[in-house]
C-alpha cells in the first residue's frame, strides 16, 4: 500500500518535471525565434508561470513533508509573484516609450 503510494507520487512528480522542462525549452526557443518584442514577451512569460509552477511542484512532491518543501514553496510563491510583475513592468515601459506592437505581419503574408 505504502510502496504503491510512493510510486504514484514519484510518477506524478516526474510527469510534472517533464512538463516543466518542455515548457522551459519552448519558452527559450520562442524568445530566440519570435519576430516581435511583445510576442517574445509572451514566450518568456510561459517560462515564468507554467514552468515555475510545474518544476517546483514536482520538486515539492519529491521532497515530501519537510523543511525543503517549505523553502521550495516560498521560492515558488516569490517567483510567481515577481515574474508576472517584471513582465508587466517591461511591457508597460516599452509601450510608454513608444515602441509599437507589430500588427501587420499576417496581412502582409495574405495579400
Amino acid at each position, binding site marked *: 500500500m505504502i510502496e504503491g503510494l510512493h510510486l504514484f507520487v514519484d510518477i506524478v512528480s*516526474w510527469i510534472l*518535471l*517533464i512538463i*516543466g*522542462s*518542455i515548457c*522551459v*525549452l519552448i*519558452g*527559450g*526557443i520562442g*524568445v*530566440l525565434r519570435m519576430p516581435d*518584442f511583445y510576442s*517574445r*514577451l509572451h514566450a*518568456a512569460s510561459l*517560462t*515564468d508561470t507554467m*514552468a*515555475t509552477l510545474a*518544476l*517546483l511542484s514536482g*520538486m515539492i512532491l*519529491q*521532497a515530501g513533508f519537510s*523543511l*525543503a518543501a517549505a*523553502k*521550495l514553496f*516560498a*521560492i515558488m510563491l*516569490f*517567483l510567481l509573484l*515577481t*515574474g508576472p*510583475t*517584471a*513582465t508587466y*513592468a*517591461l511591457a508597460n*515601459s*516599452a509601450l*510608454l*516609450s*513608444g*515602441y509599437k506592437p507589430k500588427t501587420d505581419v499576417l496581412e502582409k503574408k495574405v495579400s
Partner: protein
Amino acid sequence: MIFAGVSCAILVTMVLAIARAIKGPTVYDRLLAVNMFGTKTALLLAVIAFLFGRADFLDLALAYALINLVGVLAVLEFFQNRIDANGDASGD
C-alpha cells in the same frame, strides 16, 4: 537522473536567453532576456539542490529570486527616465 535532464533543459534555455540578449535589437529585448536568465538561475539552483542532495542551495535560490526582481525593476526605472528625458521614442 531526471534532475540531470531538467538542469540540461534549463541550461539550454539560459544559453538561448543569452543569445537573445546579445542579438536583441532593442534594449527591452535585452532586459527581457536578462530577466529570464535570472529567473532560470533561481530554478537551476533549486534543481541543483536536489541533483547533488544539498539542501542549502535552496536558500541561495530564494535569495536570487528576490535579487532578480529588485534588479530588473531598478534597471527599468532607469531606462524609462532616460527615454523620457531624451524624448527618444525608439527605445534603442
